[in-house]
Protein backbone atom coordinates (compact mmCIF):
# COMPACT_ATOMS: atom_id res chain seq x y z
CA UNK A 1 0.00 0.00 0.00
CA UNK A 2 1.15 3.48 -0.80
CA UNK A 3 1.99 5.87 2.04
CA UNK A 4 3.50 9.30 2.39
CA UNK A 5 5.40 10.64 5.36
CA UNK A 6 5.87 14.32 6.03
CA UNK A 7 8.10 14.49 9.06
CA UNK A 8 7.39 18.01 10.18
CA UNK A 9 3.88 18.88 11.29
CA UNK A 10 4.51 22.51 12.15
CA UNK A 11 7.57 24.56 11.28
CA UNK A 12 8.15 28.08 12.55
CA UNK A 13 10.82 30.22 10.90
CA UNK A 14 11.89 33.82 10.83
CA UNK A 15 11.94 35.67 7.54
CA UNK A 16 15.07 35.02 5.46
CA UNK A 17 15.66 31.63 7.11
CA UNK A 18 16.16 28.63 4.86
CA UNK A 19 13.48 25.97 4.59
CA UNK A 20 13.53 22.26 3.98
CA UNK A 21 10.42 20.13 4.36
CA UNK A 22 10.84 16.40 4.22
CA UNK A 23 8.71 13.99 2.23
CA UNK A 24 9.17 10.24 1.89
CA UNK A 25 6.88 7.87 0.07
CA UNK A 26 6.63 4.13 0.16
CA UNK A 27 5.57 3.13 -3.33
CA UNK A 28 8.38 1.51 -5.26
CA UNK A 29 7.02 1.83 -8.77
CA UNK A 30 6.94 4.82 -11.06
CA UNK A 31 5.34 7.84 -9.50
CA UNK A 32 4.69 11.43 -10.37
CA UNK A 33 5.49 13.69 -7.43
CA UNK A 34 3.75 16.89 -6.45
CA UNK A 35 3.90 19.54 -3.79
CA UNK A 36 0.70 21.47 -3.26
CA UNK A 37 0.30 24.56 -1.09
CA UNK A 38 -2.71 26.00 0.68
CA UNK A 39 -2.40 29.63 1.73
CA UNK A 40 -4.70 30.83 4.53
CA UNK A 41 -8.25 31.12 3.25
CA UNK A 42 -7.33 29.90 -0.23
CA UNK A 43 -7.70 26.67 -2.14
CA UNK A 44 -5.02 24.07 -2.74
CA UNK A 45 -2.74 24.92 -5.63
CA UNK A 46 0.26 23.37 -7.30
CA UNK A 47 3.68 24.46 -6.06
CA UNK A 48 5.82 22.18 -8.23
CA UNK A 49 5.91 18.71 -9.75
CA UNK A 50 8.28 16.02 -10.95
CA UNK A 51 7.43 13.58 -13.72
CA UNK A 52 10.80 12.65 -15.19
CA UNK A 53 14.17 14.11 -16.22
CA UNK A 54 16.18 16.47 -14.04
CA UNK A 55 15.51 15.40 -10.44
CA UNK A 56 15.84 19.00 -9.24
CA UNK A 57 12.65 20.83 -10.11
CA UNK A 58 11.78 24.44 -9.61
CA UNK A 59 8.35 25.76 -8.81
CA UNK A 60 6.65 29.02 -8.12
CA UNK A 61 7.83 31.65 -5.63
CA UNK A 62 11.42 30.38 -5.45
CA UNK A 63 10.62 26.87 -4.23
CA UNK A 64 12.45 23.81 -5.47
CA UNK A 65 12.40 20.11 -4.72
CA UNK A 66 14.80 17.27 -5.31
CA UNK A 67 13.73 13.75 -6.19
CA UNK A 68 16.11 11.15 -4.77
CA UNK A 69 14.92 7.81 -6.05
CA UNK A 70 17.19 5.72 -3.82
CA UNK A 71 15.76 7.41 -0.74
CA UNK A 72 12.15 7.58 -1.95
CA UNK A 73 12.27 11.25 -1.05
CA UNK A 74 11.05 14.49 -2.58
CA UNK A 75 12.05 17.22 -0.17
CA UNK A 76 10.94 20.80 -0.62
CA UNK A 77 13.39 23.67 -0.19
CA UNK A 78 13.55 27.44 -0.30
CA UNK A 79 16.74 29.38 0.48
CA UNK A 80 15.04 32.38 2.09
CA UNK A 81 11.43 32.32 3.25
CA UNK A 82 9.09 35.28 3.35
CA UNK A 83 6.13 36.05 5.58
CA UNK A 84 3.86 35.38 2.58
CA UNK A 85 5.06 31.75 2.52
CA UNK A 86 3.00 31.05 5.62
CA UNK A 87 0.78 28.18 4.49
CA UNK A 88 0.14 24.46 4.65
CA UNK A 89 2.32 22.34 2.37
CA UNK A 90 1.29 18.90 1.12
CA UNK A 91 3.49 16.33 -0.54
CA UNK A 92 1.53 14.09 -2.90
CA UNK A 93 2.84 11.22 -4.99
CA UNK A 94 0.64 9.93 -7.77
CA UNK A 95 1.19 6.32 -8.69
CA UNK A 96 1.53 6.43 -12.45
CA UNK A 97 -1.69 5.54 -14.16
CA UNK A 98 -3.70 5.21 -10.98
CA UNK A 99 -5.27 8.68 -10.98
CA UNK A 100 -4.88 8.59 -7.22
CA UNK A 101 -3.12 11.56 -5.71
CA UNK A 102 -2.10 10.36 -2.25
CA UNK A 103 -1.59 13.29 0.09
CA UNK A 104 0.72 13.46 3.05
CA UNK A 105 -0.62 14.86 6.30
CA UNK A 106 0.79 18.28 5.51
CA UNK A 107 3.27 20.63 7.14
CA UNK A 108 2.13 23.94 8.48
CA UNK A 109 4.73 26.65 7.93
CA UNK A 110 4.57 29.83 9.95
CA UNK A 111 6.98 32.60 8.98
CA UNK A 112 7.51 35.30 11.55
CA UNK A 113 8.25 38.78 10.16
Amino acid at each position, binding site marked *: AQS*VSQHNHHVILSEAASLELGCNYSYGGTV*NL*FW*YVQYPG*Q*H*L*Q*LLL*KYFSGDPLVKGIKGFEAEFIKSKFSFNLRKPSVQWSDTAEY*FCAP*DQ*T*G*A*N*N*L*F*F*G*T*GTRLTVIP
Partner: protein
Amino acid sequence: DAMVIQNPRYQVTQFGKPVTLSCSQTLNHNVMYWYQQKSSQAPKLLFHYYDKDFNNEADTPDNFQSRRPNTSFCFLDIRSPGLGDAAMYLCATSRLGGETQYFGPGTRLLVL
Protein backbone atom coordinates in the same frame (compact mmCIF):
# COMPACT_ATOMS: atom_id res chain seq x y z
CA ASP B 1 -11.47 33.99 -12.94
CA ALA B 2 -12.70 31.00 -10.98
CA MET B 3 -11.90 27.75 -12.75
CA VAL B 4 -13.27 25.21 -10.29
CA ILE B 5 -16.36 26.41 -8.48
CA GLN B 6 -17.96 24.74 -5.51
CA ASN B 7 -21.36 25.52 -4.11
CA PRO B 8 -22.26 26.11 -1.45
CA ARG B 9 -19.11 27.08 0.47
CA TYR B 10 -20.77 26.09 3.73
CA GLN B 11 -23.51 23.51 4.14
CA VAL B 12 -25.34 22.57 7.29
CA THR B 13 -27.45 19.44 7.31
CA GLN B 14 -29.15 17.24 9.85
CA PHE B 15 -28.11 13.77 10.82
CA GLY B 16 -29.53 11.38 8.22
CA LYS B 17 -30.83 14.09 5.86
CA PRO B 18 -29.53 13.67 2.30
CA VAL B 19 -27.30 16.45 1.04
CA THR B 20 -25.80 17.28 -2.35
CA LEU B 21 -22.66 19.27 -2.97
CA SER B 22 -21.91 20.63 -6.40
CA CYS B 23 -18.80 21.36 -8.41
CA SER B 24 -18.42 22.98 -11.80
CA GLN B 25 -15.38 23.71 -13.95
CA THR B 26 -14.56 26.04 -16.80
CA LEU B 27 -11.37 24.20 -17.81
CA ASN B 28 -13.02 21.51 -19.93
CA HIS B 29 -10.93 18.91 -18.12
CA ASN B 30 -11.60 15.22 -18.58
CA VAL B 31 -11.13 14.18 -14.98
CA MET B 32 -13.03 15.37 -11.92
CA TYR B 33 -12.24 14.29 -8.37
CA TRP B 34 -13.91 14.48 -4.97
CA TYR B 35 -11.82 14.54 -1.80
CA GLN B 36 -12.77 14.54 1.86
CA GLN B 37 -10.56 16.48 4.23
CA LYS B 38 -11.16 16.26 7.95
CA SER B 39 -9.65 18.70 10.40
CA SER B 40 -5.83 18.49 10.54
CA GLN B 41 -5.79 15.57 8.11
CA ALA B 42 -4.72 15.08 4.54
CA PRO B 43 -7.28 15.23 1.73
CA LYS B 44 -8.52 11.73 0.98
CA LEU B 45 -9.77 10.76 -2.46
CA LEU B 46 -13.34 9.45 -2.47
CA PHE B 47 -13.80 8.86 -6.20
CA HIS B 48 -13.16 10.34 -9.59
CA TYR B 49 -14.67 10.49 -13.04
CA TYR B 50 -12.59 10.06 -16.16
CA ASP B 51 -15.06 11.46 -18.66
CA LYS B 52 -18.16 9.38 -17.90
CA ASP B 53 -16.27 6.51 -16.30
CA PHE B 54 -16.77 6.44 -12.55
CA ASN B 55 -13.94 5.16 -10.33
CA ASN B 56 -14.68 4.56 -6.69
CA GLU B 57 -11.91 4.21 -4.12
CA ALA B 58 -12.10 0.87 -2.33
CA ASP B 59 -12.63 2.34 1.10
CA THR B 60 -15.20 4.99 0.17
CA PRO B 61 -18.41 4.28 2.11
CA ASP B 62 -21.54 3.39 0.14
CA ASN B 63 -23.16 6.41 1.75
CA PHE B 64 -21.24 8.57 -0.73
CA GLN B 65 -22.36 8.71 -4.35
CA SER B 66 -21.50 10.90 -7.28
CA ARG B 67 -23.00 12.06 -10.55
CA ARG B 68 -21.44 13.72 -13.55
CA PRO B 69 -24.21 14.75 -15.96
CA ASN B 70 -21.83 16.55 -18.31
CA THR B 71 -18.19 17.62 -18.62
CA SER B 72 -18.64 20.75 -16.55
CA PHE B 73 -20.56 19.52 -13.53
CA CYS B 74 -20.04 16.90 -10.88
CA PHE B 75 -22.12 16.27 -7.76
CA LEU B 76 -21.40 14.59 -4.46
CA ASP B 77 -24.43 13.02 -2.82
CA ILE B 78 -24.32 11.94 0.81
CA ARG B 79 -27.37 9.77 1.29
CA SER B 80 -27.52 9.67 5.08
CA PRO B 81 -24.93 11.97 6.63
CA GLY B 82 -23.52 10.97 9.97
CA LEU B 83 -21.66 13.11 12.46
CA GLY B 84 -18.42 11.60 11.18
CA ASP B 85 -19.05 12.97 7.71
CA ALA B 86 -18.52 16.53 8.85
CA ALA B 87 -15.53 17.68 6.85
CA MET B 88 -14.29 19.88 4.04
CA TYR B 89 -15.15 18.41 0.65
CA LEU B 90 -12.80 19.35 -2.15
CA CYS B 91 -13.46 19.08 -5.86
CA ALA B 92 -10.56 19.00 -8.29
CA THR B 93 -10.05 18.58 -12.03
CA SER B 94 -7.23 17.55 -14.30
CA ARG B 95 -6.88 17.44 -18.04
CA LEU B 96 -5.74 13.84 -17.95
CA GLY B 97 -5.12 11.39 -15.16
CA GLY B 98 -1.87 11.85 -13.29
CA GLU B 99 -1.49 15.47 -14.25
CA THR B 100 -1.73 18.65 -12.20
CA GLN B 101 -5.00 18.92 -10.36
CA TYR B 102 -6.87 22.21 -10.00
CA PHE B 103 -8.81 22.51 -6.79
CA GLY B 104 -11.94 24.37 -5.89
CA PRO B 105 -12.29 26.28 -2.62
CA GLY B 106 -14.14 23.43 -0.96
CA THR B 107 -17.47 23.04 0.78
CA ARG B 108 -17.41 22.77 4.54
CA LEU B 109 -20.14 20.39 5.69
CA LEU B 110 -21.54 20.51 9.19
CA VAL B 111 -23.82 17.73 10.39
CA LEU B 112 -26.09 18.48 13.34
